[in-house]
């Protein structure tokens, strides 16, 4: 079964192979260490959720207290897993789209070690009680210049690749990647500088939410969208439906995102316009997100059945569906009548988890399922594991979301009733926290197969085969054997 795709000339293939070869070590380095951090983060996440449900558990051990475990979990998830997976994807995709080989692989690997070292120090510090209790910026303050510098030095290579790209139209994913590359340092450094300036405590709470919202809209979401814009045409073999629409979506996000954040503090001790501007730009940003969704929908139209087979397509499209859900929920929360019940409570945790896991991580898994076979030269060992990875991740994130929605709503309603003691608002949410525990158990379980497969691929023990590993190809499992064969032949690419 020789499966050469129409339109791919031998020169094309050679070029792609050369590019893949040039980036394989740094990209695999980022993927494997990201996966290791994801493992740590899921374990910490389960323990944190359990502690929230049963606060007296392991009372005597400060290392297992919620106040340390939870931030350690979030930081490992964000800076360990998500940022590194994102960097690996950025490097590979930028090299492919600019059609240039990476020249300084060793340089990136060294910096990758520095990044890992910094994150490990930070997580350990938070875990041993030296965090500074600012959500997502908990690392001791001497660490941030190092992390920022390392990140900048890494993305410089990505920007250089973009600079020396082969002539031709710039693809929309490249725009997102360049933007994400430069936005993160801006957001990260700004937030840390302001926090370091020892302003008022109220303002530092404001800066923290500004940072959180911008990390989501300026880094996680752009990369997830870049992945979808790349993977979908790759797999279905069609161009993106509309470039003008894609551009419009990009610029809407670029313009709106920086204003967000304070809408998490409606009624808070800030000048009223701050949350108002945050809320309005969250709603405006939804315009951009719907543009992306419409664009992807028309690109996919008539080809949705391919999601049955291609893991990359399934994961990245699911990520985009979750993006739409996330953006709609965020926009709804920008109305005071609604946010009154949903702010300052567990629902925010559900929403953040949705963005990091449901949107970004799922899209990143899609990209990883696409990239790793190309750079390691073997196929994923088992489609069934990929299928379980998908379903249990889906169960996990939806359980967390629904549970935290219910918890937040009951908490919010009791917070809103001024004659109810605060204690009650904690008690009513408690039963729902089981969903957080369950969700993280599902996610941890789903990722076991992913870790195992990635490890096999890493040591070169993947499947040696001409065909891709599809989700439904084991004998008797294919929805239609003929269809699966077609997919494997070239209409779809895992």
């Amino acid at each position, binding site marked *: 079964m020789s499966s050469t795709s129409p339109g791919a000339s031998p020169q094309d293939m050679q070029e792609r192979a050369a590019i893949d070869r040039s980036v394989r070590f740094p990209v695999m380095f980022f993927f494997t260490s990201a996966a290791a951090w994801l493992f740590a983060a899921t374990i910490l996440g389960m323990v944190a959720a359990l502690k929230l449900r049963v606060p007296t558990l392991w009372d005597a051990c400060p290392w297992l207290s919620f106040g340390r475990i939870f931030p350690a979990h979030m930081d490992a998830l964000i800076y360990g897993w998500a940022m590194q997976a994102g960097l690996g994807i950025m490097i590979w995709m930028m090299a492919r789209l600019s059609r240039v080989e990476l020249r300084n692989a060793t340089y990136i690997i060294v910096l990758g070690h520095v990044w890992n070292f910094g994150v490990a120090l930070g997580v350990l510090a938070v875990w041993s009680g030296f965090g500074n209790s600012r959500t997502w910026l908990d690392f001791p303050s001497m660490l941030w210049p190092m992390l920022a510098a390392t990140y900048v030095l890494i993305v410089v290579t990505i920007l250089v690749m973009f600079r020396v790209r082969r002539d031709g139209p710039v693809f929309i994913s490249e725009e997102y990647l360049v933007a994400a590359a430069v936005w993160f340092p801006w957001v990260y450094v700004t937030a840390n500088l302001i926090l370091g300036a020892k302003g008022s405590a109220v303002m530092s709470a404001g800066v923290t939410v500004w940072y959180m919202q911008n990390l989501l809209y300026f880094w996680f979401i752009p990369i997830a969208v870049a992945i979808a814009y790349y993977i*979908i045409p790759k797999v279905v073999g069609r161009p993106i439906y509309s470039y003008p629409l894609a551009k419009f979506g990009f610029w809407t996000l670029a313009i709106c995102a920086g204003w967000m954040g304070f809408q998490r503090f409606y009624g808070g001790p800030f000048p009223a316009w701050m949350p108002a501007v945050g809320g309005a730009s969250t709603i405006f940003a939804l315009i951009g997100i719907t543009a992306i969704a419409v664009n992807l929908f028309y690109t996919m139209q008539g080809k949705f059945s391919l999601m049955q087979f291609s893991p990359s397509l399934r994961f990245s499209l699911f990520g985009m569906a979750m993006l739409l859900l996330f953006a709609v929920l965020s926009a709804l929360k920008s109305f005071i009548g609604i946010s009154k019940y949903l702010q300052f409570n567990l629902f925010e945790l559900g929403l953040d988890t949705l963005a990091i896991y449901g949107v970004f991580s799922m899209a990143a898994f899609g990209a990883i399922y696409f990239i790793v076979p*190309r750079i390691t030269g073997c196929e994923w060992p088992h489609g069934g594991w990929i299928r379980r990875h998908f379903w249990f991740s889906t169960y996990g994130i939806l359980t967390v979301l629904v549970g935290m929605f219910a918890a937040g709503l009951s908490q919010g309603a009791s917070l809103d009733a001024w004659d109810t003691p605060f204690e009650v608002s904690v008690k009513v949410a408690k039963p729902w926290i089981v969903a957080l525990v369950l969700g993280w158990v599902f996610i941890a379980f789903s990722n076991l197969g992913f870790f195992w497969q990635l490890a096999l691929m890493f040591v070169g023990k993947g499947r040696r085969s001409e065909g891709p590993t599809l989700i439904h190809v084991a004998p008797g499992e294919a929805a239609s054997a003929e269809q699966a064969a077609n997919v494997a032949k070239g209409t779809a690419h895992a």
Partner: protein
Amino acid sequence: MSEPGQNMNLDYQTEGARVSTIHHAVRREHAEPEAGDEPVRFGWLLIGAALLIAGGGVLGTYSGGFSQDQTYAFAYYTGAGPRPPGANGDDGSAKGPWIDVWMAEGKKVYGNCVACHQASGSGMAGQFPPLVGSEYVDGGTKRLAAILHKGLTGPITVGGQSYNTPNLMPAWNTLSDEKLAQVATYIRRSFGKLPEGESGVVTTEMMKSAREEFSGLPSPLPTSELAKLDPAAHLPGAQVDLETGDPLGAAPAEGEEKKVP
């Protein structure tokens, strides 16, 4: 964290790839993606316009005219709130009737009393006299103010039941006149059987006059001293409009003070 070694057993260990050695995944791949040029959909423009209007609405209604002094331009809590007028930089105009706020504050201050008189005001048999059905509560406000400012000790008969216990009623003169006025209003309106037409409201101004008037009395006040006060005498001070909290007319003259409130 992984160490990239040369023995990773990856493909492409040799330089210079020939097509035959290129991995299948790369071979079967489509060309790098491009973007089409379809026009923007009209239906989507409608969604966009709707969102634009919604966002503008949020900005307009919530931003408080972009003033740096406006903490929030809207009543975040819209029901009859516990917030006293003037709190948190708003003028209290949209807070519901004044009396509701006054009573809610009074209920909070009454938190000081529940240990002895109970939340229901029923007291505790043989130990703490009730406020419900007590002539000290719904009678003249002068006597009530004296009890609150000075405390009380000695045998007392409340609602036909006599209490002669070593328990004493502590003085509450550490509370502000406003708080005492609020709690007095609260117990009078909630527990007392007020005569027809009486609002039961005690104002800050009235409480203030009581503090001055009774400053010479001993504390805790013996019931024998209390008995010397006119049981029906009211504190001087203007009655207020229950909707707005503004004084009604001029303060009653000296001789009239017993008639109202």
